[in-house]
């Protein structure tokens, strides 16, 4: 059996303040669902910085290498042709395509990594806890181990000024 409690705030400042209180009580908040990115929330939840930048860098590097390498291969190995007396290994000519390839690969690798890491994508099935979380509600999710635990949590949440505290059971 898997259970969790949801509760919401109407304002992000109340949310941040409440979070502090909840954390101080040693309660782990599983997730916070917000209608917009709340500044300082990631710190408050103790999240580490995203590693997507590294994916982007790797993608960009691969794109650049493929871009440059392919052009160089075509011009010097596969089919060297004399274009207006330019050297076969015409580095300045290769730069624009290399750059575009780097950007393309970086952007797409990162975006795919983003979608995969978030497990979202076209047709993704996710739980919508409250239709107002994309409007004006800030929803807390706290995992619950047992009944007793649930009560404690509910109390803490209540103290922290959260509304609509609900226990949800998942099977």
């Amino acid at each position, binding site marked *: 059996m898997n259970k969790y409690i949801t509760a919401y705030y109407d304002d992000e400042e109340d949310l941040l303040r409440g979070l502090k209180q909840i954390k101080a009580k040693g309660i782990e908040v599983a997730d916070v669902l917000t209608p917009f990115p709340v500044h300082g929330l990631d710190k408050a939840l103790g999240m580490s910085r995203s590693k997507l930048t590294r994916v982007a860098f790797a993608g960009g590097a691969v794109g650049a290498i493929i871009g440059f390498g392919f052009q160089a291969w075509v011009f010097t190995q596969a089919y060297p042709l004399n274009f207006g*007396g330019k050297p076969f290994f015409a580095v300045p000519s290769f730069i624009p395509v290399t750059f575009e390839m780097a950007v393309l690969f970086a952007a797409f690798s990162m975006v795919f990594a983003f979608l995969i890491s978030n497990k979202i994508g076209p047709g993704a099935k996710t739980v919508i806890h409250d239709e107002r979380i994309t409007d004006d509600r800030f929803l807390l999710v706290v995992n619950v181990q047992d009944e007793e635990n649930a009560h404690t949590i509910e109390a803490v949440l209540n103290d922290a000024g959260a509304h609509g505290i609900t226990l949800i059971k998942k099977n």
Partner: protein
Amino acid sequence: MENLTFILKKKTVTIFLVMIAVGVLSLAYGFLGGVEVKRVAANLLLNNYYFLSLGLIGLFFVTVHTIAESGWQTSVQRVGEAMSAYIPVGGGLLLLFFVLGGLHSIYPWTHSDHLDAILLKKVAYLNVPFFYVRLLVFIGVWSLLAHYVRKASVNLDLHGDMKYFNKMRTLSAIFIVTYAVTSVVSSWDWLMSLDPHWFSTLYGWYIFSSMLASGFAMLILVIYVLKRMGYLSHVNDEHMHDLGKYLFGFSIFWAYLWFSQYMLIWYANIPEETIYYLERHKYFTNIFYVNLILNFVIPFFLLMTRKSKRVFTVLVPVSVIVIIGHWVDLYMAIMPGAVGGEASGIGIVEIGLTIGYLGIFGLVTFWSLTKAPLAPKNHPYYKESMDYHTHY
């Protein structure tokens, strides 16, 4: 509580004076030690231009953020203003250099008896009197605007009156517009005309981008030095991050313009244009590539991550490299035309004179820092600057 007033210590002054002495000695060596006059003159021009430009970028930093209604930069605004104090000094030195024979010694077009058909067509522009007229206008306008911007900024801090804030905005706008034109034209006059046959429409902006990158590097360095001295504690990682991003961005921007100019000339391969790069390829092969590495490759890879822009251990070395790099870039711009490939080199004159000018620049800048509180607390956006987070 932070230390708001900068006090110039004797030790610091001594260091700068020693540097200046090194400069004077190497100048003397240049004249007496059998170094070609041309080479000495070209070095004087290089350093005059370089440090004058750094001063101008200081002013540019202040004014551009002022008109952009930006707030975060107010924490380091004084440093930019202090750099701009060098403008009248550098301008004077440059004027002196030209008057005392610098003009005639390295600018081929000043030799009216050696004008060929193409140069004769340009006489309406490239002639000594008109050159001086422009020179005086540039230096005069820059110095005056530097003075008034600074004055308005200090007054704003003193009186906290919005009148000064608006005045500063107006002056900034005037400076930006003037500088947009004068930076370009002055680079044609002082640098491009060293190769009087050659021309490139991008040249002015290219030189500007070079100075922009080095100017921000210098700004970072001065901030670093001040912080090391225990000042500017209100300047935090976020501010450095932004400056680092500038350095990163302008290094890429410089590379972009370098590539644009080089590639277009390389591609069309028209002799009247390629001659510029041919000379540089032939006599300055290593420097040609070193230039790219110092000014693009190193800052690009080292400043790519978020962290590197926030820690001085990366930011400072990169800034030093970029400052050296753009010195090299100017060297590439000046030497082939002024001195010629065979007579050029990097030796006592080059290094010594640069140290000397750095001394003057440092002295003026730090002296200027003593004249006003380091944090313009009454600036309307100062508070924004203090409450400044970048979470990227």
